[in-house]
């Protein structure tokens, strides 16, 4: 994490609105994408994204700079809001719908050759485990490095690499299955 960001966070803690606005500019796209891929209802993405920053502003005074980056704190707020969203607004997905079929032969590069839309990806990501979702979104959608994802999630890099492996495999199987059943 850069010194620049640490200075901004320290200023924001003192309720410096310009500093907080810069942090907002820096993270709004990432938080928006994170929420988009973690929720199924597009109408809620704007609202939840705004709530993340409003909550962050309300509680920035409680934030203390530690080894965990500011982004981790922000994503934690987003994560908690997404969980609340599912608790209150979305019906539970039956477990059988989440089961993956292991006997599907994955078509080599077929996915790369056909265009994957954000809507298709969102539906597929929703079928991953919670940890797998986090890794796919943070690594491949938000563009963080493995080490950064590990810090954001509070895990070690080895565990995140393993999650990345399993998440890509699961996602590939889900999308292959959906392609096979139009």
């Amino acid at each position, binding site marked *: 994490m850069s010194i620049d960001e640490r200075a901004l966070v320290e200023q924001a803690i003192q309720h410096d*609105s310009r500093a907080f606005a810069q942090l907002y500019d820096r993270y709004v796209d990432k938080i928006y994408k994170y929420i988009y891929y973690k929720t199924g209802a597009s109408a809620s993405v704007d609202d939840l994204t705004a709530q993340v920053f409003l909550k962050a502003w309300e509680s920035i005074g409680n934030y203390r700079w530690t080894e965990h980056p500011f982004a981790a704190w922000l994503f934690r707020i987003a994560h908690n809001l997404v969980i609340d969203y599912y608790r209150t607004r979305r019906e539970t997905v039956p477990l059988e719908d989440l089961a993956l079929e292991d006997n599907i032969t994955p078509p080599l590069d077929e996915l790369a050759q056909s265009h994957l839309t954000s809507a298709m990806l969102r539906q597929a990501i929703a079928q991953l485990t919670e940890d797998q979702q986090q890794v796919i979104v943070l690594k491949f959608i938000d563009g963080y490095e493995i080490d950064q994802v590990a810090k954001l999630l509070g895990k070690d890099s080895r565990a995140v690499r393993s999650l990345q492996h399993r998440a890509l495999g699961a996602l590939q199987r889900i999308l292959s299955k959906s392609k096979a059943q139009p």
Partner: protein
Amino acid sequence: MIDLILEDCLKDIRDGHATLADCLAKYPDQATELAPLLGMASALQAVDEVKPSLEFRQATRARLVALSSQPVRREHSRQTWFSFMRSSRAYAAIALALVIVMFGLSAAIVDASSESLPGTLLYPVKRATEQAQLFLATDAASQARVHLQIANHRLTEMVALSQQGQDHLAEQTIGEYDAEINNALEITTTQIKQNNSSIQNLTQGLANQQKKLQESQPSSSSEKLVQRALTISGKALGQLSRIKSEAAPSATATEQPTPGTPTPFPTLPALLATPPAAQPTIDLPPSPKFTPPDRGKPSDVPKPTREPKLIPQIKLPNLSPG
């Protein structure tokens, strides 16, 4: 081991040091397992980029800056704030203030923008006002109502554009009408088991739109567009009807209707109670002139801001949060 190899390949491909084929050749024993994983990663890089709209970014930023000039709210003051926000007049007033602050415009200009059409100078102000209203609609019923109002705007614009012969913009507008109706439907569906008034409001709003469309006496050239709007609203009404049928048993069980009363929502005279702002109206000119080309459905919302493109190789964004 495979985890490390996978990450090694992803990095090499991202940095342009290797292609997918190079990686598979470099690790022949793991090639079978690596290929679909790298293919999946490659597909992820080619997915449409999703970004918040400029209007949303600006509105949220303006709200944050406005809030930051006040003391941090406590729980009791938040309740007062949200009580105030429930009023539709409060929505309109604050949305107006937000747009004025955001764009440095006078209230008269914002008001004038309400009649503007796509492609005109004031139209972005109109859209920003709508986004601000949506942003300030904190509960589902209000959000659905605002989406319905916006749908109403799109219908009015569609007819005006068709009169001007702006085929492409009229087609875009009818697509946005469809998207707004879908948004209202989606929100209402999630609320239906808890609050029947939402579906009543949406049903009535759609019925009003249908009535106006049917009374519009469009010219032969614009008949197709009007028919398409009727199909969209009719389809939404059909969906609402199905939702009502499914929700009726639980609703009647809790609300204890009079025996023999056929209406599925006997306890909510929502149509009469709905405030004027929740009753969408549309003024359709009598003789629109427009011949629309065929066009598909609008894309998923929120719309990606980048054109979809296929990237043959993995190209991770060089992005550092620090």
